C-alpha cells in the first residue's frame, strides 16, 4: 500500500508540473490557434535561465525565479513578434513546421551556451520527507504541488476575471469580432506567447527540483502536449486533469510495468493513455467538439 501511495504522490507531483506546462500550450492554442511544438524547449530554456541567474550570476534563489520568468516572458513576446506574426495567413502545416524548427533552434542554442552536461542549480526546497497516509512523501513533492496549484488557480482567475483575460478569451472565440470591439489582436497574441513562456519557465523550474537540469528537460516539457490533447486542447480544466493523469500513469507504469518489461514503459504509457481516451472521446476529456454547418 505504501508503494502504491508513494507512486501515486510522485505521479501527482510530476503531473502538476505537466499541467502547468500544458496550460501554456493551451493558452497559445486558444488565443492564436497555433500548435506550439517548441513548448517543451521553452520549458527547458526557462529552467536554464533560472540556472543562469541563480548559479552563474549569483542571484538569491528566490530572486532567480522571477528573473527567469520575466526573461522567458520577453522571449515569448519576441518569438510572437518576429517569428509568428510573419506567418499570419499561412497554412497550419507551415506554422507547425516553424514551431518545430524553433524548438530545434532553442535546444541547440541552449546546448551551445550552457554545454551538454547536466547542471546543478541550488535546490529551492528543503530536503526531507513527511508521512502522509503511511507513505513517506518528500517535501519537494508537497511544495511542487502547492506551488503548481496556486499558479493554476491564479491563472484561471486571471483568465476569467481580468480585462486581458477576457480579451484573450474574446480573441480565442472570434478574432474578427474581438478586433471590432477595439481589442488589439497582435497585443493579445504577444501577451499569450509571453504568458506561455512564463508558465513554461515555472513548470521547468519545478521539474528541475524533481528531476534535475539537463537537455532532456525538453522531452519532459513536451509531456504538456499529450496532457493538453488528453484533457481537450481548448479546455483549461481538461489540461489540468490531463497533466495529472499523464503524471500518475507514468509513475504507475514505472513502478508496476517496468519490472515486467525491463524498463521503458514510462516513456510510452502517457501516449498509450492518450490514444485510448481519444478513441472514446476524440476531442479529449473536456474538449469542445467541432461542429461545421454545411
Amino acid at each position, binding site marked *: 500500500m505504501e*508503494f502504491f501511495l*508513494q*507512486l501515486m504522490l*510522485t505521479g501527482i507531483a*510530476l503531473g502538476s508540473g505537466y499541467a502547468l506546462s500544458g496550460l501554456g500550450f493551451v493558452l497559445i492554442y486558444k488565443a492564436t490557434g497555433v500548435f506550439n511544438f517548441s513548448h517543451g524547449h521553452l520549458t527547458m530554456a526557462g529552467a536554464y535561465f533560472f540556472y543562469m541567474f541563480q548559479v552563474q550570476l549569483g542571484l538569491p534563489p528566490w530572486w532567480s525565479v522571477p528573473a527567469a520568468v520575466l526573461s522567458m516572458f520577453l522571449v515569448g513576446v519576441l518569438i510572437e513578434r518576429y517569428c509568428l506574426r510573419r506567418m499570419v495567413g499561412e497554412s497550419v502545416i507551415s506554422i507547425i513546421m516553424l514551431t518545430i524548427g524553433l524548438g530545434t533552434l532553442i535546444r541547440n542554442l541552449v*546546448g551551445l551556451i550552457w*554545454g*551538454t*552536461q*547536466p547542471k*546543478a*542549480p*541550488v*535546490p529551492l*526546497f*528543503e*530536503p*526531507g*520527507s513527511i508521512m502522509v497516509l503511511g507513505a*513517506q512523501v*518528500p517535501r*519537494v*513533492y508537497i511544495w511542487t504541488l502547492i506551488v503548481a496549484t496556486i499558479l493554476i488557480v491564479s491563472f484561471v482567475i486571471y483568465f476569467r476575471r481580468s480585462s486581458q483575460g477576457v480579451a484573450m478569451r474574446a480573441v480565442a472565440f472570434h478574432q474578427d469580432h474581438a478586433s471590432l470591439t477595439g481589442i488589439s489582436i497582435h497585443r493579445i497574441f504577444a501577451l499569450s506567447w509571453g504568458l506561455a513562456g512564463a508558465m513554461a519557465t515555472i513548470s521547468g523550474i519545478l521539474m528541475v527540483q*524533481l*528531476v*534535475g537540469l*539537463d*537537455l*532532456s*528537460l525538453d*522531452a519532459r516539457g513536451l509531456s504538456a502536449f499529450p496532457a493538453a490533447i488528453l484533457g481537450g486542447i481548448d479546455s483549461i480544466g481538461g489540461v489540468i486533469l490531463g497533466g495529472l493523469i499523464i503524471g500518475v500513469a507514468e*509513475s504507475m507504469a*514505472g*513502478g508496476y510495468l*517496468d*519490472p515486467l518489461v*525491463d*524498463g*521503458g514503459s*514510462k*516513456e510510452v504509457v502517457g501516449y498509450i493513455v492518450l490514444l485510448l481516451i481519444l478513441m472514446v472521446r476524440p476531442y479529449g476529456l473536456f474538449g469542445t467538439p467541432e461542429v461545421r454547418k454545411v
Partner: protein
Amino acid sequence: MKNSKIKSRLSVLGISAAWLATIALGFSGLASAQDTHKFAIANDLSGPSAYHGKTYSSGFSIYLREVNDAGGVGGKKVELIQENAERNVQKEVGFLRKFALQDKALAAIVVTTDGLFAAKPMGDTLKIPLMGIGVPELATSPTSPWLFNIFASYQDTVFAAIDHIFQTDKDPKIGVIYPDNQYGLEALRAAEIRMQKYSKPLAGKAVMSLRETDATTQALALKQAGVKYVIVQLAGAHIAAVLRDADKVGLDAMVYATTQGMDREPDLILGQSNGANLAKKFIGVGPWSKWNESSIPGVVSMRNAVMKYEKVTEAELGNIMYSNFVQGYVNAMVLVEALRRAGPNPTSEKVRDALNQIRDFDTKGITQPLTFSPDRHKGSNAVKLYRINVERKVYEPIGNWVAPN
C-alpha cells in the same frame, strides 16, 4: 559556329581542370596518409552525452601532442582522426570501415559498448585493432583476435564492489540499477555471477534508461525489495539522481557507482540540498586514477601536459580532466607503445601483434601495469574504490588497487 566551338573547348578545359583537381586532392590525401601514423575514433561530438567522447579524445590528443613534440614515432607524427558517429551503432560501424579501408588507421576506438559488439564479427575483414570507451568483459572474454580492453572491465568493477560489500556484511541485500542495453546487461550479468560465488541471490534489480533523470520508481522498487546496497551501471548524472531519489523515498542504501559513474566531478551530488549526506552514501569503483591524485607520477605528468598545452592553471584542471580524459590519455600511451614496437612501416596487423607483446606496461601509476598476449586482450583487472571528499569536492581512493579474481 565559332561560338559553339569556343564553348565546346571551354567545356573540355573545365572538365579537365576538375579531373586534375580531383587527382591532386586524392594524391594530397595519400601523401598525408604517408606522412603520419593514424589512430581513429568514431566519436560522439554532439549529443547530450558528448562530453564522454570529447574528454576522451582530449586526453588522447594531449598525449599525442607530447609524443609529436618529442619527434613522433619513427620520425612521423601521430594523429587522431575523429568522426562524429553520435553514439549511433550503424554510424560507428560505417566509420570503422572508413578508418580501416580508406584512412588506413592503425587502430580504432568506438564510444558505445553496442558498437564494439557490432564490430566484433568484422574483425577479420577490417583487420584493425579495436577498443572502446566502454570496457565490457565480453569484448575480450573469450579473446577476440582484434578487440582489446586496455583497462579492467565493468565486470571487474562490479566484482570489486560486491567483494567490498561482503567484507563488512555477510548477508547483504544487493540490487542493481542498469540500462537495458549491452552496457547495462554487463553489470547485471556480473552481479549475478559474483553473487553465486557467495551463494546469495540478488535482492532486486531495476532498469533505468540512459535518457532518464528521475530514479524515483527504481528507488521505490528496490526499497520494496529491502535492498541495502545498490550497484549502478550508469553515468554520473544518473548516480546523482539515484542518490537524490533514494533519499526522497527513504531507500537507505549505499550506492556503488561503476566506471562511468565517476565520469564527472561530484558536483551534481554535492549540489543537492543535502549533498554532504548523499555523498556519504556513495562509493565509486574505477580502473584508472583520478586527475586529483597528485601523488601518482603519471597523474603529475598528465597534469603538467594539460597545463602546458591547454594553458590553464592548476585550479582549472578539474574542469578539463574528467574521468574519460584520463582514459583517453592512457589509451594513447598504450597504442603509441604498440606503434613503437611495431617497427618501421607499421600496419594495423603489426600494431595488433605488438599489442600482444606488451608485458607489465608502466603507466606511471595511473593504472596497474598492463599486460597483453594473444590469449589475453585485457590489460588489467585491477580497480580502485573511491569516496567523495566533501570539502575538496573530489573523489579520493579508499586503499590501494584491488584485483578481483
